């Protein structure tokens, strides 16, 4: 889509674009280029120089057990965060879409946790589930369950998934509800007259018509779980115990800043860039198609 009428001014548009382009170049293209370049270098152990090693950083990663495991960890984490968060939100949105009394209050109470930063969410959940002081941890142990996310990988994973999914429910809820409310009333009425009960209407009309929203949320949740959960991991487990919650984006940070393995970290950055690029591409392809409904 383009404007039919425009101004013809030679210098002004460049001036208007300048701030954004400047910031983009300095803080985006330059670092991205650096990442690409560094991913091909191997710094010497004393940090005095670096050797150009072509793709050996990538080759090394391909054979690195920890890196491959981090992929699996990220996949498991992303899968469960997306599943739990989206299904809880869908359930709540379906209910909120039906009730008449108190719908506004329910909505407000369900969306405000969106404002909680992932890192703060991590602190809050740790406060409840930390094995030595957490109040819920205490009751779990009192009930005979040996809860210990500090030592037990499965427990640690469960905890970060719960916190990450919790943080995202508000967002998903809001979009599901908006999606449901955008479905024309007359379609629901037509289905009711055709004999469909509430559940049947949800299954055969509302849910299928919600598919653009569902797909959109799927991509957003995957991106969220991949990249925005850094704060949760950092506050709750720092990737441990062992490497059991070390998702890819956390590994870029821990290898780069903690491990000082800059070549590998840069190579990991490049791989992640490809992943985000892919996700964005999928999303845009789909947005083009979804206008048909």
């Amino acid at each position, binding site marked *: 889509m383009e404007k039919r009428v425009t101004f013809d001014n030679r210098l002004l548009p460049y001036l208007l674009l300048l701030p954004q382009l400047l910031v983009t170049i300095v803080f985006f293209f330059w670092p991205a280029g650096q990442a690409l370049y560094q991913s091909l270098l191997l710094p010497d152990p004393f940090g005095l120089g670096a050797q150009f090693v072509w793709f050996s950083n990538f080759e090394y990663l391909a054979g690195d057990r920890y890196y491959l495991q981090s992929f699996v960890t990220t996949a498991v984490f992303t899968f469960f965060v997306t599943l739990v968060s989206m299904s809880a939100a869908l359930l709540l949105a379906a209910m909120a879409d039906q009730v008449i009394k108190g719908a506004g209050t329910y909505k407000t109470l369900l969306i405000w946790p969106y404002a909680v930063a992932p890192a703060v969410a991590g602190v809050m959940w740790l406060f409840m589930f930390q094995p030595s002081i957490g109040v819920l941890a205490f009751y779990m142990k009192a009930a005979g369950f040996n809860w210990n996310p500090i030592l037990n990988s499965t427990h640690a994973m469960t905890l970060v998934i719960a916190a990450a999914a919790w943080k995202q429910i508000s967002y998903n809820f809001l979009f599901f509800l908006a999606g449901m409310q955008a479905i*024309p009333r*007359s*379609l629901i*009425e*037509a*289905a*009711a*007259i*055709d*004999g*469909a*009960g509430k559940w*049947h209407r949800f299954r*055969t*009309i509302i849910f*299928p*018509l919600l*598919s653009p929203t569902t797909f959109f949320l799927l991509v957003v949740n995957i991106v969220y779980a991949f990249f925005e959960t850094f704060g949760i991991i950092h506050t709750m487990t720092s990737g441990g115990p062992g490497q059991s919650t070390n998702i890819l984006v956390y590994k870029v940070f821990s290898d780069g800043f903690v491990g000082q393995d800059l070549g590998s970290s840069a190579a990991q950055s490049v791989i992640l860039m490809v992943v985000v690029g892919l996700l964005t591409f999928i999303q845009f392809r789909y947005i083009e198609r979804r206008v*048909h*409904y």
Partner: protein
Amino acid sequence: MATISIRDVRKSYGTTEVIHGVSLDVADGEFIVIVGPSGCGKSTLLRMVAGLERISGGTIEIGGRVVNELEPRERDIAMVFQNYALYPHMTVFDNMAYGLRIAGKTKQEIRDRVNKAAAMLQLEPYLERKPRELSGGQRQRVAMGRALVRDPAAFLFDEPLSNLDAKLRVQMRLEIKQMQRSVGTTSLYVTHDQVEAMTLADRLVVMNSGVAEQIDTPMAVYERPATRFVAGFIGSPAMNMLPGTVDRSGIALESGRILAVPEAERLETGRRVLLGVRPEHLKLAAANEATFALGVTAVETLGADTLAHGRFEDSSGDFVARLPGDAKIAAGERLPLAVETGKTHFFDADTGLRI
């Protein structure tokens, strides 16, 4: 197929009552059209019959069964919506089959019934298409097909033709009429278009501000409008209304001038009334036979007819006469006009009721 009986039905939103007690008995197989201006409550009334709106007072029976508390799906009705409400993710076939599948019909029966309806509505080539691949008229047919296959006790139509262009509207109007005749299902049809109302209805319900002002056959409504509102709403151009007082020799207008209207004799003198004359019941007359003369301000030539607009004496309203298309009239003329005998209407000036 069934009768529908609406008794003193009311609808309120909070403390505002929008439908003030409508009663109507629909015979089995009858085609009833509910007509009125927008906001008169006609759609609300239909939606209460469908079960899409709660009934605040009174009862609605379908086939002798009180349905007030029944959900839409328990009422055995089918509805055609203004925007068609076709399920966008389903093919035409699935749209029509949806209700039958829910009703648990066998695959064979579903196929037979959908195919039969599709044949009737000439939809056979489109059964595998999605609604968005259809034209407006085809979508309209699918919406009708969806109602048809269900073979319900009653059809409800909510302004089904208002999204179509003028030409298609005329065609679909005829098709709806023929379809209803051939299946003989009791129908309630809501529209704001008086031509649709007149042509489709066995009986008309004319609604205004939540009240059914008249329920009768189209011709009866046209010939003997029960109220001033009905008189003005049905018929185009609208009936001319002249306020005045009954006098011994006719109607005394506000200007003091007396119109010689023989039909006024039956009315008590001194009563304040509205004299109504339809534009089509005026004819050009010789000056000595004319009831009055109209100062023409504008002329609309429609081909078959010519509409002469004018000011009637000093009364402020527009006065229209519908004259033959070949009448040669120009603005500025004074037309001597006569009212056809027996074609006058009188309404009480205060209540608006027909006298």
